[in-house]
């Protein structure tokens, strides 16, 4: 499942360009982005809407393709791979948590969590599964369908699913965006624990300074370029930085 680490980098992008549309209608979403995502680190990507932060996440994760440049996941250069191969990489190396609609409505919480393993046709690591479920407090919710779970529980199931196959890297897109502040804090706490306790690598897109403050490192994006970086952030420092950027 997990590729043997040869470097300390979980994901990289070199001179990433992404254009949408052609001709006069063309919009440059990424404008020469180079970034390294270190292992066992919780990285947050921040920026105003339209800054390209979601595009950066999507291209890093192999959901979308760069127009130019190169990106890799644990030394696999995915920009050169075919669609089927990229799917394979996603399946084996990447976990996802989206803002909403994270779960397949017809599958129970347990089935949703084991979905990546089932798709890969692998055997479930029972001990690991129980550990995640214990930490996320989902033990008594496993037979429920998503519709029977609260928003916070649904997002926790999504995190469990992202963790279960021990991916190289987890990409999260505003995971707490739809949650109330308590559930949001709880969820981000779990994600932080996963980084600290299991050495999980997480990249998260957010526009919420409080959410970003859970990260080890924040990348600030503006007009498709990385304009700043912050280590060991607090909510106040982030807010100040954002005010400087004029938001």
């Amino acid at each position, binding site marked *: 499942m997990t590729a043997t680490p040869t470097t300390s980098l979980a994901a990289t992008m070199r001179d990433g360009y992404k254009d949408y549309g052609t001709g006069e209608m063309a919009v440059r979403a990424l404008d020469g982005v180079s970034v390294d995502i270190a292992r066992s680190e919780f990285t947050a990507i921040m920026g105003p809407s339209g800054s390209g932060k979601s595009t950066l996440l999507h291209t890093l994760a192999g959901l979308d393709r760069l127009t130019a440049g190169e990106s890799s996941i644990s030394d696999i250069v995915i920009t050169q791979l075919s669609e089927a191969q990229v*799917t394979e990489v996603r399946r084996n190396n990447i976990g996802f948590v989206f803002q909403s609609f994270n779960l397949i409505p017809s599958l129970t919480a347990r089935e949703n969590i084991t979905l990546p393993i089932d798709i890969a046709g692998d055997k479930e690591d029972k001990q690991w599964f129980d550990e995640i479920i214990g930490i996320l407090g989902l033990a008594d919710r496993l037979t429920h369908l998503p519709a029977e779970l609260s928003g916070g529980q649904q997002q926790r199931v999504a995190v469990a699913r992202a963790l279960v196959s021990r991916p190289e890297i987890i990409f999260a897109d505003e995971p707490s965006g739809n949650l109330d502040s308590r559930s949001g804090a709880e969820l981000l706490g779990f994600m932080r624990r996963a980084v600290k306790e299991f050495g999980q690598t997480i990249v998260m897109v957010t526009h919420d300074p409080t959410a970003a403050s859970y990260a080890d490192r924040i990348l600030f994006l503006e007009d498709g370029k990385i304009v700043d970086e912050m280590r060991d952030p607090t909510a106040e420092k982030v807010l100040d930085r954002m005010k400087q950027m004029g938001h």
Partner: protein
Amino acid sequence: MFRLAIKSIKHSPKRLILTAVAVALGVSLVAATQIFTNSLSSGFSNLFSESYSSIDIVVEPDPNSDVLFAADEQPLSDADLTAVSATEGVADAYGVILTQGSLVAPDAGASQPGPPTFVQNWNGNADIDTGAIAVGTAPTQPGDVVLDSETFDGGYALGDTVGIAGADGLSEYTLVGSVELTSGTSLGAKFAWMSTDDAQEFNGVEGYSTIDVIADEGADVDDVTAAIGEELPEGTRAITGEEKAAESVDALNSVLQYVDIFAIAFALISLFVGAYIIVNTFRIIVTQRTREFGLLRAVGVTGQQVRRMILLEALVVGVIASTIGLVMGYLLALAITAIATVFVGDIFGVLTLPPDAIAWAYGLGLIVTMASAIAPAIHASRISPMEALRESATESKKPLRTRNIVGAAMSVVAIGLIFLGLYGDFDRPYIYVGVGAVLLVLGITLLAAQLLVPIAYGLRGVLTRLFKVDGKLAANNIRREPRRSANTAAALMIGVMLLALVATFTESLKTVVTAQFDATSADYFAIDTAGTGIPDGAIELITNTDGVADVARIGVGPVQYDGADSTIAVIDVDASKDLMSFETDPDITEVGDGTYVSQSIQDQGVEVGDTVTLTGGGGTVDVEVTGYFNDEQGGEFNVDWTTGEEVLRDVVVSQLLISTDPGTDVEALQTTLSDELATDYPTVLLQSPGQLAQFANQFIDLLLGVISALLGSALVIAILGVANTLLLSVTERTREIGLLRAVGLRRRSVWRMVTLESMVMAIFGAILGMLLGLGLGSALVLALADFGFDGVTVPWIWLGVYTVLAAIAGVLAAVWPAWRASKLDILKAIATE
């Protein structure tokens, strides 16, 4: 509202494409038939009026008369011809002899006769002869014959010896010419002309079948017709050519009307299936647009306006689909006539768009579309404005209880009606059966949703084991919307049900037929292939052949009984005793000669010992009823040979049952006999019971084939329905599929998931249909026990074929939806709004 409806269709026309295609297919079937029969009718009407245009008056047997002519007499004699010629105002009168024979192909040695050959006497008038000499000379000398040029060109040369087999066996003539038919086409038949004397000799009868009259210039045709009428013998009439043409057209139209009704019946089945798709489509669309309707309601649109909007959408779809259907129908009719023209010549009038076709096309198309949209429209009008604010647009899970109760009630009532119709004693049982069958289909459709839930549970395990996640997801999808899946499967169920019903019926029929032929102790059957009867000479030949033991004749003839047309079958009772299985009461093999009546005559209150009066070619005869017969030997009356000759005077032998002496080589004797018959009596075909059974079974299979083909459009529509439902479901599940792709599901897996879903629905529908069809078919067969059915034969092979076809149909139906699903842009699918 109208603008909103149009905009909504314009905004996403794709979701309505398959719906429109389904309606259009059904409509095109009706339109094509209407256009085709209309053109055929106008074509023939031209042909008839042309062929009677120069004949002023026709003298012929009166179809409304009680007088019947025996097989060995002609309605009109030389004296009649003389009398007609002498009538005031008659310029020319031609005695016409028209009979049938079988032209023996020049190189055919064996008894393989072609299509019927019409034999006519040569009158030397192109209007009467329906053609003029193209090559050679007219057949004025004894022994001369001319053929229509189409046949002539098919391998004949002047001076050839031409054999024509008729009621008295084979006669030979010298070919002296060919005739170009006035109509330009022989419609696939063959024509031969010879001198009047030869024609009479060939026919074995003096006199004429009709007399064609050309009136004096300026004479009043009606007056002349009346004057001729007074000269005529009983049972004949004089009619103007114009009226005769009109009568012929009327007769043809009434036949074509049945073709129309037949086609409309099959089109209705297709549209009924189409209605399922429309209901499903509109239901799904309404669900998908719940938030939109909620918003409309929130900004002040009334529920009624929402309802009207949906119905308007349905109206637009109906109009477009009907128009497409009409155009498709026209093209289809064009294609059919083009193909038919190649085979039978140009018999069609100009292909027009008759008002009937337009009325049926739009009438059916609009009614079906609008009626199907009513329930979804009502559903939409009840959407609360609150729905606009709801997070997800999933349909609230209503329990299936109401649906189950209604479905069960409908099914019970339906089965009751079907049994009443089949076993009850009603005037029009088919109405009960028909209404029952429709109710049953609807009832089972409703129940199918409940049935699908446990099946999907069961399948989940199997599919998961076989196809891992893809299978599990497919099973889940079916279970998630049991109503939708059930309605989709039910559309296919209808077509398969009818197929299975017909197959059960035909297979059971084949069993009966085979058993009947197995039961006979006759070694051969002789049948007549030209429709003129088995010549006496042939019977004599067979009887006198060494090795032949018994020969039993079966004849048929028309009679008048109780003021209505009827038929009698004439049997050699003694000779038949051992060769035929009679089911009579009292037993014919003990009672012997006499008159046995059918169930229908018995139902009129006729009992054994009563006297019935039969009028035939031989005159009016009173006969005493000896018993009843239970099986169908043809005709309402079975009489012994003596009685038959009394009533009919000349009995046309249609069949012989032949047995051989013990120890005879049956196969060798058949070869010997067949060879001998081929020389002089090529129209007599000798067959073993096994061969005849095989022949009958082939015919029954052909029947099954034709009906299956006609049900084809209903099946195609049902498959479109599966595709349509899947397509809409895939659209609905865009985000879900996107998520699956994001977490690593391959395109191939997505494709397989949709295909599995499709196959399960298709096979489920097919199995339901087969169960229903088998049930209804069995009920039908058992109800027809009086007609000789003694058990149901399950058409296992066909059921297997239908299941495999359903699976293939499932794969095909999934192609477009699966392609769409697997090509989904992941980013769009997972994009937060």
